[in-house]
């Protein structure tokens, strides 16, 4: 029996985030109520430290903890993305935390711990690490979803998310157990080797396990038909946490999805690709069609995020270097534009989540020209209008699908994209063409301004100069191509 290699630097990012969380808990006790803002800045500082660490860590394919954790370029790409999302979410929530009556220290701590869970999901080379990461992030987010004090919707959102999340986690775990039974291991690499060795393409135990795994992950990714919780939870949770769920959790879950389906199960792709094809089609269609009839902007963005998960699934089905890198590129583009849109929803509904009906946005365009223009850019990007990030993302995804011969899937995807233009434009039309129905007074604060500027720059830059991001995305999926 040998003691496995422990390589602490490989989890340096997580260690920094956890120590920041502990510091925040401590300072929460010491700092006076009026100065709680400093906790937010401390959190951002810790996350920036983690971000710098993740960017400068050049160890490449370091394997640590006896092969349980990896730090390859795929992980690094997603670590930077997820920590970046966490920074923006923290900045976004600072103003509403000051104005609301929420417990500031606990909020930041939970965001930090949820981020650690996401990073573990990305780093795990073993199904159990992925499961533990998923649970770490889920448990933190169950609490965060119910964080609006006294708001019945928020408590209800936490309740629904918890019951359905725990239910889905049990399916995921059963899937892992069956895969363990069929292959004798839970290691990503070991599973792939065993399938190749024994030619397990039609082994019922393995296929059942993969199916249950798909149910569990599909729940976290809000794929139709496992999406019923999404609109309710997105509507009830604090808006910044909704953004965190829509972008951060999705990025982490898609990373785990790519790791498992691309890394462990490529040899039985002929079994899961058809299932994913159907899931992608119904996810895109249901998301977009139901979004048309929404009157609440958070619910509309919830359905839009369901539809976007469908587009990303198209990239996974296409596979190959173009498809996988398009998935990563899309996750980045989606992060910028969606965080921007949610940032404006947070800002516009400054106190106690007011102004979340789409009708409340009437007249925003001329009363707050910068805010209106920014919202219009984010919505155009989500709709896929060139030359913005969302357009390039969809372009890469659909060209990958055509290259792999999925013509019908591409046609359905593009038609869906056309449908989505309608509901994104409706908000813009209301912003610019309708008289305001009520007076809303907004004060720009530093954190929210930073959020909007970062999101704007990212959305425009990823559309005009995509090469920088695309090269990194291509670099990080080398291990999948082999």
């Amino acid at each position, binding site marked *: 029996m040998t003691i496995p290699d422990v390589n602490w630097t490989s989890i340096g990012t997580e260690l920094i985030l956890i120590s920041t969380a502990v510091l925040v808990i401590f300072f929460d006790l010491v700092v006076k109520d009026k100065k709680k803002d400093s906790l937010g800045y401390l959190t951002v500082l810790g996350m920036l430290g983690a971000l710098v660490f993740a960017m400068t860590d050049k160890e490449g394919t370091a394997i640590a903890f006896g092969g349980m954790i990896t730090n390859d370029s795929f992980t690094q790409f997603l670590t930077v993305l997820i920590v970046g999302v966490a920074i923006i979410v923290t900045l976004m929530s600072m103003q509403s935390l000051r104005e609301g009556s929420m417990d500031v220290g606990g909020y930041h701590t939970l965001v930090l711990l949820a981020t650690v869970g996401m990073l573990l999901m990305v780093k795990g080379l073993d199904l159990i690490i992925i499961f533990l990461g998923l649970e770490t992030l889920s448990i933190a987010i169950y609490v965060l979803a119910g964080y609006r004090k006294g708001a019945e919707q928020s*408590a209800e959102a936490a309740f629904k998310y918890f019951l359905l999340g725990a239910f889905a986690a049990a399916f995921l775990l059963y899937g892992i157990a069956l895969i363990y039974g069929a292959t004798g291991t839970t290691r990503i690499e070991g599973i792939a080797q065993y399938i190749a060795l024994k030619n397990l393409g039609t082994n019922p135990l393995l296929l059942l396990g993969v199916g249950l795994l798909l149910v569990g992950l599909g729940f976290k990714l809000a794929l139709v038909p496992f999406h019923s919780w999404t609109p309710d939870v997105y509507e009830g949770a604090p808006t910044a946490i909704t953004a965190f769920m829509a972008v951060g959790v999705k990025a982490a879950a898609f990373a785990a999805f790519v790791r498992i389906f691309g890394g462990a199960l490529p040899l039985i792709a002929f079994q899961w690709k058809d299932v994913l094809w159907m899931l992608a089609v119904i996810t895109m269609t249901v998301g977009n069609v139901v979004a048309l009839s929404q009157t609440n902007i958070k619910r509309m963005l919830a359905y839009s995020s369901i539809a976007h998960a469908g587009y990303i699934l198209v990239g996974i089905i296409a596979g190959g270097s173009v498809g996988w890198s398009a998935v990563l590129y899309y996750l980045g583009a989606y992060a910028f534009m969606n965080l921007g849109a949610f940032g404006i929803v947070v800002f516009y509904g400054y106190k106690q989540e007011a102004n979340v009906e789409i009708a409340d946005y009437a007249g925003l365009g001329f009363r707050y020209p910068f805010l209106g223009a920014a919202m219009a850019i984010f919505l155009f990007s989500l709709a896929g209008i060139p030359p913005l990030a969302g357009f390039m993302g969809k372009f890469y995804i659909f060209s990958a699908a055509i290259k792999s011969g999925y013509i019908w899937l591409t046609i359905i995807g593009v038609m869906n994209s056309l449908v989505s233009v309608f509901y994104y434009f409706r908000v813009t039309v209301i912003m610019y063409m309708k008289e305001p129905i009520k007076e809303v007074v907004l004060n720009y604060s530093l954190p929210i301004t930073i959020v909007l500027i970062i999101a704007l720059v990212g959305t425009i830059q990823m559309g005009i100069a995509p090469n920088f991001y695309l090269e990194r995305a291509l670099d990080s999926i080398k291990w999948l191509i082999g």
Partner: protein
Amino acid sequence: MIPLSHFLGLSVILFTIGVLGVVIRRNAIVIFMCIELMLNAVNLSFVAIARSLSSLDGQVIVLLVMTVAAAEAAVGLAIIISIFRTKGTINVDEINLLKW
């Protein structure tokens, strides 16, 4: 020695009872107990598979899963208490402020 298929069969039965409970019962606490039952069904199959493969991995996984279940129970019961405080009920049919 009891063959592996017996253990897996029992695990499937327990898991199915858990799923049916979640779908049919309306009391949040009972639903939560059914979810725990599902997790324990999974634990049973992990232990059984680990024994038949004579590998330790499955046994260790069960310890981790029990830890996760405990953490989940702590948070879950707190959430159920908070919904009881705001609504006065834990019947899932009456918790319908947000449309499903």
